């Protein structure tokens, strides 16, 4: 597997301009002859599909929901970063770049991150022009807040529904192109395989989730914007149907998978209440601006929060990280919560929870001020837990939230398969080993609006349009493989439901490849997943037919992929013998703080498929830090 990152020449701030100039252009009259398949309609997919269509390409776009507007991006709450420096508080493109490289614990590619910071400002302009109703001040100008471990206020937001509003903006742009017949939209359609012809991505195999029909689509290039794989843990803050299928099956067709073990665990989620739980709800991290996190100093203190006097409370983030306090980055805040729970100081019935307390800010600012800022979140919390967060502290606990790993891409967002581009959370992205708050929306939209429209042209310019017809034998072969898998899943008729297997996998992943990992645990996890996978193929029970809506069948395919992907994730975690960002190896720490090994691991790990996950081969893309110098990441 050849890994050419194609980082352009020049100083860091000139690289993107240089690249744009170098890229070959497709003649405007020829654009309509090319067809691009965009899989996914979240922020990355909708923005890519709309922008490519505006340029004149024919676009087909796919999503598994009943409408492109329902993609998981809709759920993002807190905000989107942009280096506008509207606050005059010292922000700049360079500072956003610096913060992102450092926040990612020096495991991201500098050139990509700088481009992201540059493009961040255009995103806000674009969104406002589309009618995205960002929060405003009385002057009529845009409001900002500080978010997720940043010391400047660069986050734009639309109450607690920023993802919704941004997605509706991108969806409206996409809808306009659908109306103009420049995009053909295929909702309730799931991509189940990638068609590769002579080493190039030239089509996909899909299942129509309503009729069950399995068919193919041919294109001159394929863009995957299929989101993250957090649901490999079963319980996460992601939507229930998020999955790894599109990227995993592309991986099996030759696309390198980068850093699967980099998963982000978000510190502020509502704790698990019982075995029936199907998903975890995020409480936006913006709450940490006014809430204080604490646990009792004494072990097993079962008193009510209000009965615990101040001197018996441990505001552990404020104590350990005096300069960042409650705003310490996610990976650090999550680990600190786990530590105090491990010490037996967790709160709530299960002992797996810490307090997020608004008492002091309510006293200081008044209940109304707090309600104006966080009313919808408090309401959501009360609905789920039946507790009133104005009068007693919230209970929160870390939960799987975001996945920094994904398909490996070069600077042009092209995977190791020529013609296969990957955008948004689905690629291994710009976040290194840890993503800063409000940066995923930024990345998805930068990729879709401003990167792919340029870089895909560079590829297409070298391709003859419509060169590979759907009648090519590779299409038939890929279809047959998908049909065969469907038949196999329906034929087992074992005893255990798909959900049952998914939950079992989630438990293995969370306990052994979750917040803290070690050699022995990971080896055990790999063995356990292999056993579970064998059992799945022997004993799974999928009822119903294939020529109709069959949600068990849909899930079965996704869980089958997770059962392979989970093993690779554990292998990746095992091989990365250091701690960095969201990847914490117990063997590499300084009294609880992550300890990187730059000498041996300052690289991207890229996995090549060779059959079984245990046979996958690990390659490396070395990372160079020429602008932000390697340093211990400290928030003390």
């Amino acid at each position: 597997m050849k890994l050419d990152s194609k980082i352009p020449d020049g100083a860091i701030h000139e690289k993107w301009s240089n690249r744009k100039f170098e890229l070959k252009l497709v003649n405007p009259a020829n654009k309509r002859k090319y067809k691009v398949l965009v899989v996914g309609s979240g922020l990355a997919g909708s923005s890519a599909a709309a922008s490519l269509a505006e340029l004149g390409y024919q676009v087909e776009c796919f999503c598994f929901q009943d409408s492109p507007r329902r993609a998981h991006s809709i759920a993002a709450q807190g905000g989107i970063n942009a280096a506008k420096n509207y606050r005059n508080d010292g922000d700049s493109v360079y500072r956003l770049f610096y913060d992102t490289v450092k926040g990612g614990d020096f495991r991201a590619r500098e050139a990509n991150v700088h481009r992201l910071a540059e493009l961040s400002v255009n995103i806000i302009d674009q969104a406002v022009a589309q009618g995205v109703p960002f929060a405003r001040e009385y002057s009529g100008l845009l409001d900002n807040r500080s978010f997720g471990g940043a010391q400047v206020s660069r986050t734009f937001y639309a109450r607690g529904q920023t993802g919704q509003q941004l997605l509706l903006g991108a969806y409206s742009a996409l809808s306009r192109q659908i109306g103009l017949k420049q995009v053909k939209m295929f909702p309730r359609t799931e991509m189940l395989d990638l068609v590769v012809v002579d080493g190039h991505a030239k089509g996909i195999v899909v299942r129509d989730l309503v009729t069950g029909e399995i068919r193919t689509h041919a294109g001159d290039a394929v863009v995957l914007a299929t989101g993250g794989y957090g649901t490999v843990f079963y319980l996460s803050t992601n939507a229930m149907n998020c999955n790894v299928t599109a990227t995993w099956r592309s991986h099996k067709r030759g696309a390198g998978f980068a850093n699967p073990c980099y998963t982000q665990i978000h510190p502020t989620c509502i704790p698990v209440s019982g075995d029936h739980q199907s998903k975890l709800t995020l409480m936006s991290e913006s709450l940490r601006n006014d809430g204080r996190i604490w646990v009792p100093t004494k072990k097993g203190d079962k008193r009510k929060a209000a009965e615990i006097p101040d001197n018996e409370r441990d505001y552990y983030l404020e104590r350990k990280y005096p300069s960042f306090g409650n705003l310490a980055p996610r990976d650090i805040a999550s680990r600190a919560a786990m530590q105090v729970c491990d010490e037996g100081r967790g709160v709530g019935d299960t002992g797996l929870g810490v307090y997020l307390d608004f008492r002091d800010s309510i006293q200081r600012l008044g209940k109304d001020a707090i309600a104006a800022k966080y009313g919808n979140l408090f309401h959501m919390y009360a609905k789920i837990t039946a507790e009133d967060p104005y009068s007693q502290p919230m209970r929160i606990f870390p939960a799987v939230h975001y996945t920094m790993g994904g398909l490996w891409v070069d600077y042009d967002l092209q995977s190791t398969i020529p013609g296969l581009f990957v955008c948004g959370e689905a690629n291994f992205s710009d976040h290194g080993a840890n993503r800063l708050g409000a940066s995923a929306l930024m990345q998805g939209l930068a990729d879709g609006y401003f990167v792919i429209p340029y870089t895909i042209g560079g590829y297409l310019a070298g391709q003859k349009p419509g060169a590979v017809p759907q009648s090519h034998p590779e299409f038939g072969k890929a279809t047959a493989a998908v049909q065969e898998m469907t038949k196999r899943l329906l034929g087992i008729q074992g005893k255990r439901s798909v959900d049952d297997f998914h939950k079992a996998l989630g438990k293995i992943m969370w306990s052994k490849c979750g917040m803290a990992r070690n050699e022995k645990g990971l080896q055990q996890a790999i063995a356990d997943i292999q056993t579970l996978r064998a059992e799945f193929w022997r004993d799974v029970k999928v009822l119903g037919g294939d020529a109709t809506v069959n949600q068990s069948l849909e899930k079965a395919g996704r869980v089958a992929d997770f059962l392979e992907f989970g093993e690779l994730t554990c292998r990746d975690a095992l091989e990365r013998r250091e701690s960095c960002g969201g990847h914490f190896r117990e063997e590499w720490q300084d009294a609880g703080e992550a300890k990187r090994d730059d000498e041996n691991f300052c690289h991207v790990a890229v996995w090549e498929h060779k059959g079984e996950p245990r046979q996958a081969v690990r390659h490396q893309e070395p990372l160079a830090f020429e602008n932000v110098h390697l340093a211990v990441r400290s928030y003390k």
Partner: protein
Amino acid sequence: MKLTLHIWRQQKRSTKDNFAQDGKMVRYELDHVSPDMSFLEMLDVLNEQLTRKGEEPVVFDHDCREGICGSCSLMINGEAHGPQSGTTTCQLHMRSFQDGAEIWIEPWRAAAFPVIKDLMVDRSAFDRIVQAGAFISVNTGAPQDANAIPVPKADADKAFDAATCIGCGACVAACKNASAMLFVGAKVSHFVHLPQGRVERETRARKLVAQMDAEGFGNCTNQYECEAACPKDIPVRVIAEMNREFVRAKAVEEPPSKKRVGGDG
């Protein structure tokens, strides 16, 4: 908790002439339901039980399970999204029901929303309405600086309130005329409160209304059931705004000589 459920089961997709097809209410008994479960988690438990018995699980749309994607869409005891106001089905918890309760669960029922299977309906009519004109015609890369046009906070807030619609369709399901006015009104209202959105206000109002009619949604007779059912509390004022916009658009359609100059911006 112990529950008796009556659930609409339908194998064949609704057609214009045969909406109910082979559909019927089927009774299920469910035990060991925890009050902390969400309504959809309760259905997960039922589906797990059905699967074990070899019966096909109940089909229903869902995804985010936190009230924002607009996928979930159940009529619960005759109420769209169930008994709690300002709540989607997925945000409803079993503690809202009594132990021993009987619960009737049906799909949205509206001619413009054919049933696909069991509790899953086809809401693509909403997408087609949006495609007809619920957007600002701006290409990627064209805009000026985001702060170039200040928008009074009150206007931005009004636009936002309308823009929070999740496109779930409860308003249509709750309306005896199956009208989509709340949904379409929310779109119109969102754009008309923003300077960027006012440029195309006439064409937008005309096109959205035309598409809404073409999809077979009913008329509004001011019953306000939509507002009561809406999980995002979209106010009925948006319907009045939409009517106003539509009338205004018609006025602008008049021959050029009579055309108003300027307008009420």
